[in-house]
């Protein structure tokens, strides 16, 4: 993307900080929700081809639980909270004290609970990002799917699809202490949103 031709490293650093602030708050929210320690890795920001994005969560055919939210407002984009099946079960048993069955099928109650976890996390991610940038960003109603990572993630790449063959991804990994439940937070701002994010944060565009 043309926007990144100049000062590439610096702009990547700024976006990493965007991920840090958002995900930091989301991690705190998750920790309160579970009443457990939640660790967070340093966010990675990368320009990836469509195929590489699915590789981040185990390849296009890996079955994952994904909560998707469309971000609207000043800097629109797509947001995913992605966890593998083991982590989903651990989250459910930790949160609801439910004994979750080992098979693939989730009950309405379980899906709804996972959806709500995604909702709370995305809400805290976006509200802290909004406070920091002064931009208005609000999440849509969350939607959940348990399916192949490639099938799910391609949905968040459509806005990039018309621009080229790669997308910019802000990826933060969560680790729940002790039990090793792991989750990814993906923020994929629409191509038009970067300029607004940079402007709001006082990053010179030229």
């Amino acid at each position, binding site marked *: 993307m043309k926007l990144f031709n100049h000062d590439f490293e610096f702009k990547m650093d700024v976006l990493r900080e965007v991920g840090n602030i958002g995900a930091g708050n989301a991690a705190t929210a998750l920790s309160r929700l579970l009443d457990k320690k939640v660790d967070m890795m340093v966010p990675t920001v990368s320009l990836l*081809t*469509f*195929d590489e994005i*699915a590789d981040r969560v185990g*390849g*296009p*055919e890996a*079955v994952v639980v994904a909560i*998707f939210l*469309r971000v609207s407002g000043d800097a629109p984009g797509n947001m995913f909270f992605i966890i593998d099946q083991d982590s989903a079960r651990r989250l459910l048993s930790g949160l609801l004290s439910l004994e979750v069955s080992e098979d*693939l099928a989730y009950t309405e109650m379980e899906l709804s609970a996972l959806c709500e976890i995604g909702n709370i996390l995305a809400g805290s991610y976006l509200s802290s990002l909004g406070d920091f940038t002064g931009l208005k960003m609000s999440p*849509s*109603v969350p*939607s*959940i*799917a*348990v*399916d*192949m*990572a*490639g*099938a*799910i*993630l*391609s*949905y968040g*790449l*459509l*806005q990039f*699809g*018309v*621009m*080229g*063959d790669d997308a910019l991804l802000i990826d933060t990994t969560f680790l729940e202490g002790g039990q090793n439940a792991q989750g990814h937070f993906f923020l994929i701002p629409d191509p038009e949103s970067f300029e607004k994010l940079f402007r709001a944060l006082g990053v010179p565009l030229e």
Partner: protein
Amino acid sequence: MTESTVVKVGMADLNVASGGAVLRTSGLGSCVGVTLYDPVAKIAGMAHIMLPSSEIAREGQLNVAKYADTAVPELIRRLKAAGADPKRLVAKMAGGAQMFSFAGGSDTMRIGPRNVESTKLALQQAGIPLIAEDTGANYGRTVELDSATGILVVRSVQFGVKEI
């Protein structure tokens, strides 16, 4: 049993294969996997289409494999170059699901069905009959086309394996 060669087709990508090789694309959600096959020459082609129309493209260098209206003609051209007869080609397709459901969905939300419609239109314009499809619904699919038989294998998490 012999292991056949697998030719991978990525997202917004297309490829042709022959000599018993298998064309494969993984994780089709709202994207459409369309395959063309010449049963006499046993040459197969597959495209992983992401968007319905190249009219909305804002990229400098157009990736023809990405859009339904450009991917189908390009696939025909590549198959012809590989020795297939366009008059013998038959099409199959899978994908075009709606992965997430929202109340009052916008145009973006309907991308799967729109991809299916545009692909059908492109096939119709090229005069290629669509002989089988497994499209729509709300789940992801992985597809494999065997260039020896023209059989399309569709895999999904919930419904396992099916041949069309």
